[in-house]
């Protein structure tokens, strides 16, 4: 199947739009509009807009999903009066925050105060440009997409720290420092866990990794790597039990204490974008992406947009697990967190790399039998 990327779609749309518009308009404008550079610019803008829109809607639905699910865990109902079952609640929140007055503390550093959240938001959304969603629906084809995604993902502590430091608040500063320490500590095990996947699949390309999982998903053979990856992702996403930077009980709201209005909305959205990205990465790397096991009846995989459907379903289930963890675990302490990160997670991830290397050497899986194509 030809691999149509989202950018191709945007490009086609832009071409269609501009040529159509240009053919209607008289000559001077016609020549001006039908111009490869302009088409490219429009295509890029459209691509960005589609990406942004899709990711934002998905993120907002994710927040709704979390609120409803947390409500159920807590014996209550969650948002239910704004829109059907509270579906519009988060849109109302977003619009309200959009309109609120954005206050900057007098002593805060202007550049960092505004640039931090913006950059955090932008880098978080940018990852969506790389992640493949389904066969023929990947939003971009890059041979090193996995590495690039993780690289962008790990920008966050920098921007969090910038915004925390520049808001000139003790709680923010403490939260920012915690956040930076935590994210850096958990960056290493995540990457090592990913190395295990790369070893087994022999590819840096997420699409290839998913296609390799047609026969067996990686969570079985690479269970240790999955464990390390999920725990590391929890820490990267700053969710309970690792939400120390925003630990409400001691640091008010953590590094976003001084942020209100739009900028706070940026933080909030970007947090959930990162949660979504984390869930997507788990699905892509370990749970077979948009593929289903071969014994599943083909009717389930052949309807239109089946790939996207299964992919999103898996993503939301993974996120549901994260919510479940949030509802039932207390928060750990900073030093314990770092200790677990450096002393437990890194050895475990190294072990998972060794196991993966052995798998590649043997070229057989304990449960699934010998599989051709393993190890690239």
């Amino acid at each position, binding site marked *: 199947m030809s691999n149509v990327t989202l950018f191709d779609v945007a490009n086609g749309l832009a071409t269609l739009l501009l040529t159509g518009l240009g053919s209607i308009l008289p000559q001077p404008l016609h020549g001006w509009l039908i111009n490869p550079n302009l088409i490219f610019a429009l295509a890029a803008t459209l691509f960005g807009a589609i990406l942004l829109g899709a990711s934002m809607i998905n993120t907002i639905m994710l927040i709704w999903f979390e609120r409803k699910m947390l409500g159920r865990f807590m014996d209550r109902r969650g948002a239910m009066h704004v829109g059907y079952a*509270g579906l519009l*609640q988060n849109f109302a929140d977003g*619009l309200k925050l959009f309109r*609120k*007055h*954005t206050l900057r503390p007098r002593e805060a550093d202007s550049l960092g105060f505004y640039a931090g959240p913006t950059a955090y938001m932008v880098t978080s959304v940018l990852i969506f440009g790389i992640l493949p969603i389904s066969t023929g629906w990947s939003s971009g084809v890059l041979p090193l997409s996995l590495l690039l995604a993780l690289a962008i993902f790990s920008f966050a502590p920098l921007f969090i720290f910038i915004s925390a430091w520049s808001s000139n608040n003790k709680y923010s500063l403490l939260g920012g420092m915690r956040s930076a320490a935590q994210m850096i500590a958990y960056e290493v095990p995540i990457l090592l866990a990913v190395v295990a996947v790369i070893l087994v699949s022999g590819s840096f390309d997420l699409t290839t990794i998913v296609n390799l999982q047609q026969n067996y998903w990686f969570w079985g053979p690479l269970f240790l790597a999955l464990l390390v990856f999920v725990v590391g992702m929890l820490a990267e996403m700053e969710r309970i039990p690792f939400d120390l930077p925003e630990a409400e009980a001691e640091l*008010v709201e953590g590094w976003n204490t001084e*942020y209100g209005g739009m900028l706070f909305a940026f933080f909030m959205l970007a947090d959930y974008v990162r949660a979504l990205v984390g869930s997507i990465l788990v699905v892509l790397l370990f749970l077979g992406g948009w593929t289903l096991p071969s014994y599943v009846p083909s009717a389930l995989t052949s309807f239109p947009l089946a790939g996207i459907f299964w992919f999103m379903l898996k993503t939301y289930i993974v996120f549901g697990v994260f919510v479940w963890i949030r509802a039932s675990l207390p928060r750990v302490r900073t030093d314990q967190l770092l200790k677990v990160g450096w002393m437990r997670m890194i050895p475990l991830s190294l072990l998972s790399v060794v196991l993966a290397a052995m798998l590649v050497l043997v070229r057989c899986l304990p449960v699934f039998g010998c599989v051709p194509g393993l190890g690239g």
Partner: protein
Amino acid sequence: MSSPAPAVASPVPPKSAAPLLETEIPLVNGPAVPYVEIETLRAREFIPQAKEALSSLLREQMEGKLLRPVFNWAGRNSLFPLHWGLACCAIEFAAAFGARWDAERFGVVPRSSPRQCDLLIVNGTVTWKVAHKLITLYEQMPEPKWVIAMGNCATGGGPFRTAYSVVPGVDKLVPVDIYIAGCPPRPEALLDGILQLEELIRRRGE
């Protein structure tokens, strides 16, 4: 040049050869110029006009024609109260977020930082010692913001009205939108107060 005097910066920087934006493009009716350049010129005239038109449209909408009901809907359906507890009413405030009443149904989520709040619920007795801190909190909240005086103490001092340390009514300190009676008010009363506030915001049309 051996002037020892401190160099005074010239107020006007030396002009460069040609300003970037004022290239010598003749007017439309002037001598013949290449086609593309005329297009550029038109575009340059067009951009400020479009900008003006767009911003006036936006301003008009912001002033209440189109988007205002939408923003009003958003604002009244997502009231984030400040998470703080003053006295007895704070316990009922907490109970209102408990399983039985669940104020989150109405989109009411307490936030700990005043920067992220729209609603200051004064849930308890305000003493003179805490008065200026309350005002600070109110001022730290971004506009638009509302205040609910919850309970008799916040409304008018309650049973401690005569005491030497109690502010007889929080409306002496900050403007109050909704008063809720009760000592302490039940969680239902708080929810009712919040819904009344939503009605108030809707009617005020802000």
